[in-house]
């Protein structure tokens, strides 16, 4: 199954032309124009960085470094992609570099190859829901903390793909380019990242009757195998 690149789901509509003007001014040394770009995108850059590095101080460092790097290499930005597309690649690279440099423990990827449909059980994904509106559920500090821990426990690659998809709405193809791997690998990482998030949050879900999901013992086994599998 293939498809042409589609519009990202969550990517906010930006005035790309306005960005281009700001970039052109910044390339001529206009500091105020660069500041406008910073103010426009630093929050998104922070969310992206924090999603990957999982520490507020480190995420701020990544954002700071990303804008310094963007400024220094602004003359190389040719405007073929949007400024933010260019910036998020810098942010993502710095965030992943940061993880590599500061890794205290390794969480390995489980089944990081191409997605093998035959190897997946029919009930791999858990149907529905946090008993209601997820946004409202996050107001509950305990649920918010559980989500944070679940993200922390994903491998860096799984987390990066999940954050890029859910925050930036990138297509599989765009993520494959950003992470320099195949589209199949991206699909696999995304699938397992989501499934493991679901399993780590399983007791928050309000499962509708009539749909069987993986039981707690199976969940535990799957998560343990993720931590132990040295294949990637």
């Amino acid at each position: 199954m293939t498809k042409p690149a589609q519009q990202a789901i969550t990517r906010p509509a930006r005035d790309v032309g306005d960005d281009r003007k700001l970039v052109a001014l910044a390339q001529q040394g206009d500091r105020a124009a660069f500041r406008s770009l910073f103010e426009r995108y630093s929050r998104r850059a922070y969310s992206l960085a924090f999603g990957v590095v999982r520490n507020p101080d480190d995420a701020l460092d990544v954002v700071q470094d990303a804008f310094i790097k963007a400024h220094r290499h602004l003359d190389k930005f040719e405007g073929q992609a949007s400024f933010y597309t260019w910036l998020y690649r810098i942010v993502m690279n710095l965030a992943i570099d940061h993880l590599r440099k500061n890794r205290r423990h390794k969480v390995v990827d489980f089944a990081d190859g191409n997605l093998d449909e035959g190897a997946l059980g029919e009930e791999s994904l858990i149907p529905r829901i946090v008993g209601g509106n997820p946004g409202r559920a996050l107001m509950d500090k305990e649920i918010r903390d559980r989500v944070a821990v679940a993200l922390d426990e994903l491998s860096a690659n799984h987390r990066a793909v999940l954050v890029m998809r859910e925050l930036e709405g990138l297509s599989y193809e765009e993520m494959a380019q950003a992470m320099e791997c195949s589209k199949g690998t991206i699909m696999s990482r995304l699938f397992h990242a989501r499934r493991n998030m679901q399993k780590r949050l399983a007791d928050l879900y309000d499962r509708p009757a009539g749909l069987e999901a993986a039981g707690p013992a199976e969940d535990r086994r799957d998560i343990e195998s993720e931590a132990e599998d040295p294949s990637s």
Partner: protein
Amino acid sequence: MSKVTDPDLMMLADGELDAAEASSVERAAGAAGAAKIAGLRQVGELVRGHLELAADDAEDRLGALWGLVERRLDAPTASVDEAVRAAPAAVESSGMWVRLMQWVDVHRGHLLTGALSAGAVAALAFVLRAEPQVEIRTVEVPVTGSSAGPEPRDPIVLVATPPEVESLEVSGGTGTVFTIEGEDGGSDTAVIWVTPDDVLEGI
């Protein structure tokens, strides 16, 4: 489509299927598939919500971040932490230096020949510029005493001759100095020929 797999559902939820594929998967998915897609979307909402709240928490610090960025942009030299971050680049630089020195080692003979030749030319130019001159200086001897004193002496004549190169020390090579007599009474030409050891040794 008879059987819908979880990856199919995920691709449908992510908008990765074309219109025909999407409607086919949607039809085959049924209520169970729709619930799974809802479950996938909830993961997305939880992740987005969590990251949005994290950005809210960092709002003040993000506001102050521009000052730090601007300070670094204005900094004339790289800060210490930048130097640390640039460590891989420094390693790269030292690698280039090592490669440069290896290249110098390989081409040492040619470089030495070039350097010595340049030195020889400079020395030759210096020698040729110095016209052989005889400098005659007359020293007046003061006359003292009365007219009845001793006869005044003849002036003392000092003669200076141009320096003559007797030997030439060359590091890493052999220097030979010889003179070619000028034709038809013209001035002589001094030649300094330098041969590096490496060339002699066939390196």
